[in-house]
């Protein structure tokens, strides 16, 4: 709770303890005086009261002293905050996107991840954007937080001081599964981090079709693996289960070939889920809503390219 796991946490702790000590002193003073007066001047001990109307000197003292104290608190808070706002120029940039109800992190070499991996001891500059409503990027261990606002690019930065896994929460209410919009920050020593980044970069380059036609089956397997990863990274799995349980959207389990009732323009219609349907339902989900579900899914038109969509559909096909 009080360790400094990031460079930011240090300055937050300092300001917090400064205010905490003064607050406790004030509370003890006020409470002690109340209890003491109530006992000492109870009617039994003190039958005749004295009506003292006030004391100018005291009023000045208890105006000036608190003023100085709160100005000190303001100063400590300000200094720490200024530090949070000044991003070092050599910081590593990661683009973070929030959407109902998952996170996407993109690195400069094109690597995408649903978890924020960062190198130890290096400043990380996270640029924050939202695809739908307000969210908030919150890592309690690092004591950093910033809202994600549609139409705006906000930011946070930090330098992690210990390797490990840290909770990442959405801290701005964003609807039904707000409390499940969780992720992790994984802090790795620099060389391990670089190894991770390289491995992931290979995943990105795997999109190139295999030149060897005989390896077609192998490619298909890798396409499915790719689709599975993408369904996490792109946030599909935040709302669609693969085990048949009902979440915000219909389950993926056995989706291919299933006949299902959809509502379009207020009319119900039965459809059989095929490749065409999946493509439509992903790119323009608002056109036909599966009966019994809400029209919540954002259109993926600009968020998925053809190859990514192919991989996801290939993955969905084999979920029996």
């Amino acid at each position: 709770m009080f360790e400094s796991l990031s460079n930011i946490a240090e300055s937050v702790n300092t300001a917090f303890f400064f205010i905490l000590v003064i607050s406790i002193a004030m509370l003890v003073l006020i409470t002690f005086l109340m209890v003491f007066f109530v006992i000492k001047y109870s009617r039994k001990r003190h039958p005749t009261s004295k009506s003292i109307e006030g004391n100018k000197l005291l009023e000045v003292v208890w105006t000036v002293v608190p003023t100085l104290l709160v100005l000190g608190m303001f100063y400590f808070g300000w200094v720490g905050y200024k530090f949070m706002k000044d991003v070092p120029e050599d910081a590593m940039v990661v683009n973070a996107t929030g959407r109902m109800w998952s996170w996407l992190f993109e690195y400069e070499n094109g690597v995408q991840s649903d978890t924020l991996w960062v190198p130890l001891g290096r400043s990380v500059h996270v640029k924050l954007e939202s695809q739908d409503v307000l969210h908030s990027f919150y890592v309690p261990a690092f004591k950093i937080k910033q809202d994600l606002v549609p139409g705006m690019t906000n930011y946070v930065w930090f330098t992690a001081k210990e390797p490990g896994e840290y909770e990442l929460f959405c801290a701005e209410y964003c609807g039904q599964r707000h409390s499940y919009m969780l992720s992790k920050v994984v802090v790795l020593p620099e060389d391990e981090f670089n190894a991770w980044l390289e491995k992931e970069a290979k995943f990105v380059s795997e999109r190139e079709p295999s030149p060897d036609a005989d390896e077609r089956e192998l490619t298909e397997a890798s396409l499915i693996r790719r689709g599975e990863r993408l369904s996490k990274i792109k946030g599909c799995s935040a709302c669609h289960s693969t085990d048949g349980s009902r979440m915000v959207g219909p389950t993926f389990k056995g989706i291919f070939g299933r006949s299902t009732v959809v509502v379009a323009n207020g009319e119900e219609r039965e459809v059989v889920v095929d490749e065409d349907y999946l493509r439509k339902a992903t790119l323009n989900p608002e056109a036909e809503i599966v009966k019994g579900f809400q029209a919540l899914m954002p259109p993926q038109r600009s968020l998925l390219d053809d190859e990514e969509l192919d991989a996801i559909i290939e993955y969905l096909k084999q979920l029996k």
Partner: protein
Amino acid sequence: MGNRAIAEHAPAAGFYEEKGRFSGLFAWIFSTDHKRIGLLYMISILILFSVGVVFGFLMRLELVSPGKTIMEPQTYNSIFTLHGVIMIFLFIIPGLPAAFGNFFLPIQIGARDVAFPRLNLLSWWLYISGVVFALLALFTGSGPPDTGWTFYAPYSTQTGTNVSLAVFAAFILGFSSILTGLNFVTTIHRLRAPGMSWFRMPLFPWSLYATGWVQLLATPIIGITLLLVIFERLFGVGVFDPLKGGDPILYQHLFWIYSHPAVYIMILPAMGVISEIIPVHAHRTIFGYRFIAYSSLAIAGLGSLVWGHHMFVSGQSYTADVVFSLLTFLVAIPSAIKVFNWVSTLYKGSIVMETPLLYALSFIFLFSIGGLSGLMQGALSVNVHIHDTAFIVGHFHYVMFGGTGFGFFGALHHWFPKMFGRMYNKTHSRIAWFFLFVGFNMLYFPMFILGWMGMPRRYYDYLPQFHTWHLMSTIGSWILISGLILMFANLIRSLRKGERVGSDPWGGSTLEWSISSPPPKENFEEIPRIDHGPYEFKGASKE
């Protein structure tokens, strides 16, 4: 409620016996008598408070352990929205001014009624209309609102739940609040008894005066903002939609320009109540009368300029963050001045520890914790960490419930004998206070710890490391609710069975203690002439 029963049992039935144009229920809901309207408000407000408590109880029950306990996430989201909307708009904003302000403001300044009695009745009817619309929002459309009481755009403009109607209810409630503010400001300017100069006025009217101005000036802004949300939902205007050139941050500014001053609408009257209770039960004049009076105005003024401290992590400009933080720290000073003066009022008093004083002193203790934790949030860097966590939830419950709520209960116990001519069972009232005080701290203090640990607010589910403190908090809610039940049972029973009291059971000095209990129709046979300050007690020696 059993007012007719009271009339049958009480010797001097005062205004309860008044024969108006109507009888029965109509004699109440169409009465323009400020005391009857005050009681109408009190009954309506307490019923809705109970509903809010039930929702709060259900939330705490869901959070007793991780995972699903008794409800689905969507239900939880609606319940915390309704808990907030009911407690803020239907209990705590109208609470003290509309119930006790209506009943006691005219009496304390030596008037027969408020300046506009019919407008006063209209504001109660508007309140009830708002309640009806809020209830309709629950049972019609596609499910109760799930936005939180803040209705933040763009979620509020997109969600499929019945937000428009709920927002319209809040819009109507705003008018009720504006009319009450207008009425009180005018009453204080025009209807003070001869000789009652501004500085001979008791401090409760002073606090209502400051509150009235905030109600008048700030409430229209929330009205317009809420209408914009409705327009956005119905016609897609786009004021808050970035795709159409709008700005979600604009919504937050507009919302908090009202809703932060509203916090002072909630707390100022409670501070006024404390300033009444302490001198009476310490049997001596208030310490630093003028400083307390002026600090109410300072709080109302400065409090209107600090709304941006709700938005430190929203992405508003850095300069705005710094300025709002500084102003936030300055608004702490008048509150501190009040606390020091109240404590000093105990010095050399002749104190009887009656139940109202217990509540008043608990107010000071709880409000201090609330205020001091507010300083932590005012500091920019600390705010970043605890913003939107359980810490904030703990903070505002200490201020709003520990402050205004305990102030309300204090007022209830202080003025109960005056309003009904009977005394409650004092022992039972002390036991109820004890449960309330212990339960309160057990319920809300763990939230500070949870928040500092990083537990976000408005979370239906949580990680296992937060379990212990959530469990403790939920147990606290059970103790608190036992206290509430005990308190209300005692008061309701005493309406009929309580011992009869005379005009001045506490030895008070303000005007309400000079007329019979319950007060007669139109309060004073002859309007009194005032030639001294409000807190001059018989037998208290002057220094």
